[in-house]
């Protein structure tokens, strides 16, 4: 009888205390980071890609709490990118209106 070839014992120590949240990885909001970087031209989108990658890295490593925290960050940055993008568009439209009003007044 030898232990050669026996499977290694499960790495209980690698798991954080508490149950992992039921199999479903936290959302990484990757789609928002794609939309803001490619269609909104915002450097903020880059930050949300970093957090999206962290969610999946940490989840794969068994760091469920860390994955959850990165998910929250990813959501915040996605939200702010969307808000800033919308604000820029609204400001631009207001700017265009002011320009056209000024142009008609000068005629």
């Amino acid at each position, binding site marked *: 009888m030898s232990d050669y070839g026996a499977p290694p014992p499960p790495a209980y120590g690698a798991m954080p205390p508490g149950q992992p949240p039921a199999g479903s990885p936290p959302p*990484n909001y990757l789609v928002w980071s*794609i939309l803001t970087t490619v269609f909104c031209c915002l450097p903020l989108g*880059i930050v949300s890609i970093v957090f999206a990658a962290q969610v999946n890295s940490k989840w794969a490593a068994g760091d469920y709490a860390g994955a959850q925290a990165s998910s929250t960050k990813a959501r915040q940055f996605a939200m702010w990118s969307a808000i800033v993008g919308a604000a820029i568009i609204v400001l631009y439209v207001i700017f265009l209106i002011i320009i056209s009003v000024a142009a008609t007044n000068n005629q």
Partner: protein
Amino acid sequence: MSLQRATALVTARTAGGPGAVARPLGVAALAAAAVTYIAAVDPNAPGHYPGCPFLALTGWYCPGCGSLRAVHALAHGHLGEALARNPLTVLTVPVLVWIWVEWTWRQVTGRRRERALPAWVIWAWLGVVVAFWVLRNLPGFGWLSPA
């Protein structure tokens, strides 16, 4: 309603319910409306759309510069023109469609997401975006620039 609460409502799971398909359909309708608008109102003509704020501030192209013109070209079936304006946008469209299909499938079947994309795929995506951002501003990479 607070911002947090609004986001929670937007991201709440509705899988399995009768309205489960409504949200993917709503997103598809929004996307179709946006593409139709961009197809009809030509972004090549000045004054139709706001320019890129990053370009205006720094004089450098961002990864999104040329995306409106690329979408316009794609909507008219001009793949070559779309690639010339912004190849990253052209690459992104099938990815977004795939994400939408996967999401719709989960909504319809009511299944939870069990797999996470390998993190290296997202890091690689980050690398592609940053490399694209830098290269399209360098001489010799005119084919990546939106001009």
